[in-house]
């Protein structure tokens, strides 16, 4: 068992397709929360395998996409400083702020580096004691333990030339915001498997109870998504709410207790603005006061920046499941992965970028 190819077996996918068809008697709208799931769905054509009455709505679960423009601008200001080495995951480098992106800062001489793990930043910091290493701590709950550990380890090693620009978001408040919207049409959710691997799924049990909807904790391979949809359809057809765990090979109900403890040590919950969606109360993490010395926004005095989004971009509606990418007048022409206008085109996990990459659809010129 290698835990990858087994879950891409076409014959098993066909079986699930038949099972889903047999169970579907009415139209259902199901949201996959995570951008990684959206990527698999569009890449493998999972949505085309489903009966026409099942609509998959692509959720806001791409942290790169929902990082607000002003955070990107803060990153650009810090990264341009000669006394800073700015470290980031690779997928943040092309995200446009209001004045360029991190790649353009690098092209103009800024020291911008891609890291695989947040811990790599501490190695860079140790090798460059005369400069400050700033890490762009972006992510959902999945990435929070790793980012927390880097800050925790820096403090433990008394490393002063390290700081983090924190833009962490949380899934359950966003799901609650979607379900509370008067225009909501989502009837069931595929919860994000790796977020739940860290946090567990007790919070989703409360959401299921409060909003009377089904959640299926779902993985990222084609068979995972098909089984997730199948289980969600079964719950919807039977009128059941609650949480089922499709991704039990990875996710336990309580999540990863060690990871949760690390997050709790370093971060506290606070209000966050989501690019394309707006402010959601208590929907993100910020550093606890004990770790305030590691806050790059404070250290470099950039927390007051405010900026405006492109008026043409409809990514907010795409992120809330109200529009599909090809309904945008700029899709594939003025807005492409090379020159993105907004949130959902900037990362390969964004719905617009996934459609651009895998769907050969007519582009309005």
């Amino acid at each position, binding site marked *: *068992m*290698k*835990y*990858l190819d*087994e*879950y891409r077996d076409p014959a*098993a996918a066909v*079986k699930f*397709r*038949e*099972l889903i*068809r*047999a*169970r579907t008697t009415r139209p259902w709208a199901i949201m996959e929360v*995570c*951008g*990684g799931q959206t990527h698999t769905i569009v890449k493998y054509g999972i949505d085309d395998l489903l009966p026409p009455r099942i609509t998959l709505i692509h959720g806001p*679960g*791409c*942290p*790169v996409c929902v990082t607000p423009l002003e955070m990107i601008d803060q990153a650009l200001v810090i990264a341009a400083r000669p006394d800073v080495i700015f470290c980031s*995951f690779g*997928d943040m480098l092309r995200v446009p702020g209001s004045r360029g992106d991190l790649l353009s800062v690098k092209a103009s001489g800024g020291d911008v580096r891609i890291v*695989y*793990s*947040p*811990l*790599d930043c*501490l190695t860079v910091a140790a090798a460059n004691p005369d400069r400050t290493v700033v890490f762009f701590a*972006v*992510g*959902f709950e*999945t*990435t929070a*333990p*790793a980012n927390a*550990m880097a800050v925790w*380890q820096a403090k*433990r*090693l008394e490393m002063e030339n390290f700081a983090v620009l924190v833009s962490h978001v949380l899934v359950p408040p966003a799901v609650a915001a979607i379900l509370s919207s008067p225009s909501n049409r989502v009837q069931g959710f595929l919860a*994000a*498997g*790796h*977020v739940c*691997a*860290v946090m567990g799924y007790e919070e989703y049990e409360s959401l299921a109870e409060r909003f009377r909807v089904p959640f299926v904790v779902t993985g*990222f391979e084609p*068979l995972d998504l098909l*089984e997730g949809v199948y289980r969600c359809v079964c719950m919807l057809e039977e009128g059941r709410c609650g949480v089922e765990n499709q991704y*039990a*090979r*990875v*996710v*336990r109900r309580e999540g*990863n207790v*060690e*990871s949760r403890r*690390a997050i709790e040590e370093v971060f506290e919950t606070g209000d966050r603005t989501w690019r394309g969606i707006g402010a959601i109360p208590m929907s993100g993490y910020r550093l606890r006061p004990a770790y305030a010395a590691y806050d790059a926004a404070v250290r470099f005095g950039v927390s007051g920046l405010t900026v405006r989004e492109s008026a043409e971009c409809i990514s907010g509606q795409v992120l809330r499941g109200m529009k599909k990418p090809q309904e945008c007048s700029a899709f594939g022409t003025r807005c492409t992965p090379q020159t993105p206008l907004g949130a959902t085109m900037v*990362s390969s*996990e964004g719905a617009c970028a996934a459609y651009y990459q895998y769907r050969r659809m007519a582009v309005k010129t």
Partner: protein
Amino acid sequence: MCLGIPGQLTEKYEEHGLPMGKVDFGGVTKSVCLAHVPDLEVGEYAIVHVGFALSRLNEEEARMVFAFLDSMNGLEELQSGGRDVP
């Protein structure tokens, strides 16, 4: 961003006071922090995200979906659906 890849632990060691391991991803080996799955043993698989092991893979659970699909073979529910599949 939340990409997690299954890999097999091939070696355990310690670095700057943190438990670490070498993890093999189908031929590519990376250093991975084991602080949150400290009892992962060499030979076992874990989901790895940005250089951190997030969760040990449970082989028994991993096989459930195939057992489920086998149990559905020949069931009426399966045969009744999809006759007119294009």
